[in-house]
Each structure stands twice: as C-alpha cells, then as structure tokens.
C-alpha cells in the first residue's frame, strides 16, 4: 500500500491494520447500543448454534419467488474485494448475496470448502498451499471460475489501487485448469482462514478490469444473487442468479438491501412491514418485537464488551492495579443494566473466545479476577502504600486513573456503574467521555511516540473478542509494541510470544489448542484486557421469512449460519411468496482494456537482465541504511501497477527490483531497474513527471519538489546524477498516519532507476538518503 514501486515482500501488518482498525471501530460502535434491562423475551435457545441464541423457526415446504427487503446499518466503502471493508451488519450481508468464498469457517472453527472442491493442501512447511476449485462454476458475467481467474484475481489484489495487501501471498501459480498453488512469504499453518476472509472472495477479474475504477460499484461474483443496482447509502438491489451452481437455489427472486442507520427506525420499519429482516447490534430494542411474534438469531462470537488497559502507562503497568479494577466490578450488576441476551442470564467472560468456541479454555475462568470487593480494596491499599509504586506518587497518596469511554446511552450507564464500583474499592477516577473516533485515536497513538503507537490512555471501554484462528489474533494483539498497531494494550510477554511461535509453526490442532489455551491463562492472570460480557450482532425478521439460519454445506453437511454471524441468502425463502415478473439476467460488463502487462524478463531481453542484476548487486545495502533495515527481496519483478505502467504505451523490456524494510512500519526502501527499448526511457520519465508520482501512490498525497524533466539534470544536495534525474518529495497520509516519501528517478541511457524511501511518521534521513542515491548512481554508472 505504501510502496509506490513494488509489492510488499513481508506480511505488512501496518497495511493490514488500517482496515482491521476500521473494522474494530465498527465493532466498537455496534457493541455500544442500549439494551433492555431485566426483561426476558419469549426466546428459546437454539441448541444447534454455537454462540448464538435464537427464536425457533417453524419448518415448512420451500416456496419459490418473492422479494425480501433487508434493513442494514450501513454499507461498504466498496464492493470490490481488494478495497472493501465489510462488517457483518453492514457489508457482509449484501456481499453474501452476490459473492462467495473459496472457504468458510464453520461454527466449530473448522474451515470447510465452498467454491473450493476440497481442503487446501499445504507443503511441509506450510509456505505453499494448493487449492482446487469445483468444476462448472461461472461468474455473473458468464466467465468461468478457474485457475486462470484465481491467478488474475491475485494480480488485481497486488495491483494495489486502494489496496489491502495480499495477505501474505507472494505468488499464485496455475497448476491445472482448476488448481492453483499459493506461495506465501512465510509459513502460515492457517492459510485457509485467510481464504475464508475477504482474500478468498471470488470476483470476476475480467469484469473488474472492464469496469476499472467503477468495479467498486459493480460487483460480479458467483453468488446466488446477481447485483443489479446500488444507490449509495440508500438501496442495493439483487436478483436471482439463474445459473447458480447449487442446483435449485436460490429460492427468492429478489433481495433489496436498504440502509437504515438508526436502530429504532430499522425496528420500526420491520414492525410496519417496510422491511422483512433487520440487523441489530446486540439485542437492543428486540424484546417488544419478539413479544409480537418476530423471530431473531443472535450471534455473540465477537465484539465482546471489554476494558483495555495501557500496560505501559502507570498505574496500569502494575498487575495489582489491573486486577483490582476487575475485582471491583460485580457482573451481576453489569448484567442487570446491560444483559448480553434476552433471557437476562449471566454470562461471565474470561477470554477472547466465547464459551462455545473451540478455542475456549475453561481453566482461565478459575484464575480470572471476578468480583471480589475485599480483594480489590486490599490490592488498592497495597499499591497505594507501596513505596516503589509505579505512578511515582508517595506511599499513601490516592490511586487515580483515567477512564475513557464513549457517551452512548449504554456506555454512559456502564461507565457510571464502574466508577461507583472503583470508587468503592478505593480508586479515584478521572472520567472522560469522548466520541468513538477520538477515543480510538487516543488508544492507537501515533508513530512518533516512543515506542510508536504507545497511545495516550490508562483504561478505556472497548470492543474485543474473536472467533477465528488464534494466530492472527494473538500475533497482532500482543506482538512487538512498536510495530503492531493493534497491540492496543502494549502488552508483551515472552511466554505469550513463545506460544504465538508455536501457533505459527505447528499444524497439529491439539498442539495449537494447547498454545492458545496457555495464552488465555496468561492473559487471565496478567489482565491486559478486562472482559465484561459477550457481544455480537442479531438479525430479526417477520414470521414469513424462513430458513434464515440454515446452510447446507456443498458437500451436504447440515449447518447453520448464525453461528458465524452470516446469512446464506440462497437458503432463505418467504412463506406465501409468488414468482415475480422481473428480469434475472446476467451481467455484461464493459470489455476489459487490451492487455498491457509487462513482458516477463525471461521472455524479453534476457541479456539485459544480466546488466540489471549487476546494477542490483552494486546497489547499497544495509551498511548505509538505518539500523534494523534488512533486505526483504531481491528478484525479478513485474510492475506493481499494470494500470499505470507502461504509461503512454511504453513497455519496459524488463524490470528488476531490490527492496529493504525496517519492520512492519518501515522505513520501506527499494530500487527498481527498468530496461527500455531505445528512446523510451526518456519518454517514460517525462510521462512520470507529467503524472507527478503516478497512480500507484493511491493514498492521500500532496507532492512538492517534483522536478520537471525539462531541466535534464536535477541537482540533489549539491550533486547531479545520470543523464536525467527527478526527485519527488511526497507528503501523504494513510489511515491517519503521516507517510513521507522521497522518490528519485535516474535515467542512464535506456535504463531508468527508480528509488524510493518511505518513512512512516517521520522523514527519510537526509544524509542517509543522499548516500543512498550516491550509491545508486555509482551502481548504474559502473554497471552500464
């Protein structure tokens, strides 16, 4: 995402973090809704579900036809998977109508094939995964879902645009017509879970190319419904896919998704019959509807209510204080004002995973600091009277901490409850209410902090929890503080790190469970996160809507979908529905532009690669780069942005690259050597100058210092380079973080060297940058 010239070679945690962060923010929003107090609805628990509660749907004979109208909270920034950020009650619901995944996670945590024909097959060290598709599946534009499509989808993912990086996938290699092998940058024993996420969504690459930038508004997948129209923030219409690969499905003729942002309005629309099904955060406002005969499925697998501590900010760096905070909270009181289910039953929580998750460790409950006011008072006193207390105050001074939370109705109630409890335990509380965006910024911190992203808080309300594999969860939440923006608590622990390493290297499920269970034990004791209760999302619908919770896996295995918080629209039908007289045709996207892919080095100008290799070999190494920067790649490469290069019909004969990285947050440093046909290098540089920095740099940029090529030779820090040189200083921002780039183009004959230095949160070091450019110039001169 931040590299204007070349794909990332590592798993770019920073790049991943921005959409994940936005997702976390969404979850925080969805979990802060008000909930009924002390009332139990007529709901009964569905024993089949995992972490879900539900009313029971009456069975009946499937009826075809009809139109379903669904009320959703919000939509998506885009329907193009490489740039989309979906959450359950927003993007995922419509997306599940027109898209499908290669794999999906079942309620018991296992990953099962959907569009894939069978489980993915890893090599010995899980760095290569072979995936085979089901035969006979076509996209909504009529093109086949085959190995070529998967390879092309990977190219589109890597192109960047607004890009979410390729989730650690280095190469996608076609094995046969229906089989590809994904080569990863590093071992990933749970790669199938990646393909069960956005990265595994099948979209038509030819349609995406045909639509170009409009691909975000024209999704073309393989799903049971075909996208028809979208009025942003208003309505999205889909119609039945007549060529759907699962025989006999779907049953509905049309699904319309309507955006109704206000929860009360959504439920009112449901009650009045304007919509048939609505999504809701938690169980807010559901009880009256359930009493009137409406049905619901509630999913509590993620987004639990929590309080996170900044374990690097006194007094929260002291485990005694964190545990005292927890001991003071009475879950019965909490449940009385903010129950997690309509039954009002108490649901204690002790870890990321809900009690129904396969990763749940019941032993953590035994050591978790549940309500014990005398213990809380004792720990507060112990800390207060400790002469070496971490907050720097004298023994006996009051123990104070700041609690930050959002001013939503429910959070206001829980905050006041907590403050009362903590004051009873002997704390003094500085309470601060902040809007969600401000609070998230406070928690995340800035890259300029020491360590980066330290944050500026002591304790804050939060939404956490997980139902996926523990590796990406624990790796991001408790990895190195300076390079893991999602380590909100700034908590690290060698024992946790050791268990994460086991999760990363082991394939044996039992061994992996033990590692995850051990982490749950450590966290329950150390308490970087205080758990309130499970949270999640709910769908509520009228009694005519049937089979909301059903999903028969393609292999015939019965399942349900709300255990994963999803609705499989192909299964849903309406009692009393009649076929609609509406067109249900396929999509005819614009023709893709003529291929402009760069010729691979081995197919063109092989002799030139030798020269390029010589240049690369002579390029600067770690000796002149900042400490900690290591070479991350040195190989033949193709241009990252086929849409941007070649420009104006110019085609490099070869492109060779070398790059360096200083960890997940950079700096990112690299060079690419372009070999052009005679005369084209000059035109290419002119084109580059005319386009300022080029469309590869898709984040919010302002440029300064772009030197026009007409000057022929640009002087950098008193020196001139090559036949023509241009330098760009890019001041940009991505995800709220400043990203500053120095970019230099050096032309030497028919070669162009593009060198970049990207600094996150600061500027590239001027002296080192000059040395870097010096070394590039020397390499070009000697090799040419």
């Amino acid at each position, binding site marked *: 995402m931040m590299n204007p010239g070349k794909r990332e070679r590592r798993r770019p945690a920073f790049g991943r973090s921005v959409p994940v962060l936005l997702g976390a923010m969404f979850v925080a929003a969805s979990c802060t809704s*008000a909930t009924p107090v002390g009332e139990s609805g007529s709901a009964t628990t569905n024993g089949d579900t995992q972490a879900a509660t539900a009313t029971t749907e009456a069975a009946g004979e499937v009826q075809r036809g009809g139109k379903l109208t669904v009320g959703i909270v919000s939509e998506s920034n885009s329907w193009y998977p490489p740039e989309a950020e979906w959450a359950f009650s927003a993007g995922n619901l419509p997306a599940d109508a027109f898209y499908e995944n290669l794999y999906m996670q079942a309620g018991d945590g296992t990953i099962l094939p959907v569009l894939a024909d069978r489980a993915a097959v890893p090599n010995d060290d899980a760095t290569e995964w072979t995936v085979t598709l089901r035969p006979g599946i076509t996209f909504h534009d009529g093109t086949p879902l085959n190995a070529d499509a998967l390879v092309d989808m990977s190219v589109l993912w890597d192109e960047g645009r607004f890009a979410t990086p390729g989730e650690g996938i280095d190469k996608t290699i076609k094995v046969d017509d229906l089989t590809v092998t994904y080569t990863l940058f590093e071992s990933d024993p749970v790669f199938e879970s990646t393909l069960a996420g956005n990265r595994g969504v099948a979209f038509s690459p030819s349609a995406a190319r045909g639509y170009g930038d409009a691909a975000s508004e024209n999704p073309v997948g393989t799903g049971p419904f075909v996208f028809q129209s979208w009025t942003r923030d208003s309505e999205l219409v889909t119609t039945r896919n007549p060529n759907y690969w699962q025989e006999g499905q779907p049953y509905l003729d049309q699904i319309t998704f309507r955006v109704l942002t206000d929860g009360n309005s959504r439920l009112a629309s449901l009650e009045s019959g304007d919509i048939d099904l609505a999504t809701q955060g938690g169980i807010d406002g559901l009880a009256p509807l359930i009493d009137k005969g409406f049905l619901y499925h509630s999913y509590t697998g993620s987004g639990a209510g929590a309080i996170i501590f900044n374990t690097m900010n006194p007094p929260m760096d002291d485990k005694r204080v964190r545990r005292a905070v927890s001991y003071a909270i009475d879950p019965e*009181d*909490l449940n*009385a004002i903010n129950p997690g289910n309509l039954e009002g039953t108490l649901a204690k929580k002790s870890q990321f995973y809900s009690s129904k998750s396969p990763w749940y460790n019941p032993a953590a409950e035994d050591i978790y600091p549940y309500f014990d006011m005398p213990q809380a008072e004792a720990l507060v006193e112990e800390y207060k009277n400790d002469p070496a207390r971490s907050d720097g105050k004298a023994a006996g001074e009051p123990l104070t901490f700041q609690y930050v939370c959002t001013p939503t109705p*429910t959070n206001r*109630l829980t905050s*006041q*409850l907590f*403050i009362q409890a903590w004051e009873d335990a002997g704390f003094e509380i500085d309470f601060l209410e902040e809007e969600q965006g401000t609070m998230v910024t406070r928690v995340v911190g800035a890259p300029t902090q020491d360590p980066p992203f330290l944050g500026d808080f002591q304790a804050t309300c939060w939404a956490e929890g997980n139902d996926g594999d523990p590796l990406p969860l624990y790796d991001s939440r408790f990895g190195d503080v300076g390079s893991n923006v999602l380590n909100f608590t700034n908590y690290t622990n060698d024992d946790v790190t050791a268990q994460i390493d086991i999760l990363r290297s082991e394939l044996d499920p039992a061994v992996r469970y033990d590692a995850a269970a051990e982490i749950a034990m450590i966290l329950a004791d150390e308490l970087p996160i205080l758990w309130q209760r499970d949270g999640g999302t709910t769908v509520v619908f009228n009694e005519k809507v049937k089979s909301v919770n059903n999903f028969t896996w393609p292999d015939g295995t019965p399942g349900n979908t709300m255990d994963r918080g999803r609705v499989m629209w192909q299964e849903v039908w309406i009692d009393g529905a009649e076929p609609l007289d509406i067109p249900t045709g396929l999509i005819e996207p614009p023709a893709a532009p003529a291929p402009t892919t760069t010729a691979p080095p081995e197919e063109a100008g092989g002799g030139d690669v030798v020269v390029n290799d010589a240049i690369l070999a002579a390029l600067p190494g770690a000796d002149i780069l900042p400490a900690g920067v290591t070479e991350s790649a040195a190989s033949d490469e193709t241009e990252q942005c086929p849409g941007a290069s070649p420009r104006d019909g110019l085609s490099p004969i070869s492109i060779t690259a070398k790059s360096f990285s200083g960890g997940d947050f950079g700096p990112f440093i690299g060079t690419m050597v372009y070999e052009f046909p005679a005369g084209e290098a000059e035109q290419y540089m002119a084109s580059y100058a005319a386009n300022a920095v080029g469309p590869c740099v898709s984040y919010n940029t302002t440029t300064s210092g772009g030197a026009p090529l007409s000057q022929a030779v640009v002087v950098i820090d008193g020196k001139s380079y090559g036949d023509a040189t241009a330098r760009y200083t890019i001041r940009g921002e991505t995800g709220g973080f400043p990203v500053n780039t120095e970019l230099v183009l050096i032309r030497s004959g028919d070669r162009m060297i593009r060198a970049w230095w990207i600094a996150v949160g600061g500027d590239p070091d001027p002296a080192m940058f000059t040395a870097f450019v010096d070394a590039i110039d020397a390499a070009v001169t000697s090799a040419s």
Partner: protein
Amino acid sequence: MISRFFQRINDGLGLLFWLAATWLIVVLFCAAFGTLLPLPDPDRTQPRFALQPVLTKGHVLGTDPLGRDILSRVIAGARVSVIISVVAVTVGVVVGGIIGTTVGYRKGLLERVTMIITNVLLSFPSLILLLGVIGMVGPSLKTITTVIAVLSIPAYIRFARARTLSLSEEGFVDAAEMFGTRKRVIVFRELLPNVFATLMTFGLLALGGVIVAEGTLAFLGLSIPPPTATWGSMIAEGKSVIDRALHVAIVPSTVMFLTVLSLNLVGDGLRRHFDVRETAI
C-alpha cells in the same frame, strides 16, 4: 379573609404568578439545601433495584436504569440548572447591559462596530454555535456556564442599547447633560439603573431558555459528564427505557417544564408589573 387574600393577589400579579413563584422558590430551596435533605445519595447505583416505579417505598419518584433515586437526582439536577442559568444570565445582564447602555448612549463608531458584531453573532443559529463551541472546549459545569453566558451577551447588548436609545430622550438625561455631568457618570448613574430594571425581567425570561439549552446539551451528551445529575441527562437516560419505565424521562421533563413555565409566568408578571414595553427593541 381568605377570599380577600385571593382578591388582593388577583388584583396584583395574579394567582398563576404566585403559584409559579412558589414553584421557583421550591426549586431554589432544593438547589441550595438539597444535600441536607434526608434522601439517598443521587449518584449511588443499585442496578438490581433499577426502574422501580413511582411511589415505591423509599423511592417516591422511582429509580432510574442504574437504580438511583430519581427524586434525589432531580433535586441534584436543580442545583446544576440553577447554577448554570443564574450565572449565565447574570453575566449576560451585567456585561451585555453595560456594553449596550454605553454604546447606546455614546453612539458613534463604537456603536456601529459593536452592533455589527452583535448582529453577526445573533445571526448564527445559537444551538449550532453552542454545540460547536462545547464540542471544542469540552463539557463541564464551568465551560457550559461560560459558553452560554458569552453567547447570550449579544442579545442583552441589543436589548440594553434599544432601551438606552429611548431613555436618552428622557428629561433626566437631558438634565444631567445640562449640568455638565460626565458621560460615564450618566451611563452608570442615570441610565444603567433604569436599563437594568427592565433587563432583569428580560433575564428572568431568558433563565428558562438557558435551562432548556443546558437540557438540550445534556440530551445530546454534551453537558456535564456523568454521574453528575442534570435534568437533560436524566431525560436522555430515560429515553432508552421509555417503553418500560416512562417515569424515568417524564419526571425530569415535568420538572424542567414546570420550572421554565414558572420562569416565563413570573417574568411576564414582572414585566407587566414594571410596565416594560418592548416596542423600542
């Protein structure tokens, strides 16, 4: 004798005036001495006793979603409403009155500039301006009082200036000028006492507006942070349970309604009593 008493009341300010004044005295008493009353701590949460109905034993007006005594909180909220409204109106009356009277009497460039600024400030939608400023400086008793006071000053300037323009034509001002009294003295000794008398009744009417403004801020979550009780925040808390416990929102709403109505009635009564005419405004 009783009938004569009521007759006397009706001959003067009217029964409604005295009923309203009595209510305001009760509110003022609660604001001043509420903490001395034998009532539960208004901030003490008891979630397991949440949403008790009105006339529950020990909780005459019931309890809120956190099990707190609504009567205690209404009384505690009176303190906040009284402090904010009285301080904001007093500051507005004093500062706005002095500026308005001064520029109204002295006229000239100072008056023109002052009135341009005043008109500009008055042309902003006041609630939007209030929300924006509170959003920037952060909500607290001090900031809310200050911001409301400052934002209300232009209205008082305009009122005081208009009153001064008419008073300036009066004989006592001419007389003072003929005796060679300095203009500053005329402003402070001759004009301001007359302006303040009418400005006070205007301020009394504005008290209700300030209480409603604070309530609006609280309802939007921009007033004094919890657990401090304010009428607006109590109404906001009641909104989420209105389908099950109507009294949680109705009680503070009613108290706020009665208080604002009483302020209007008392203000109107006093205005009539002092024969303030607004035609010159």
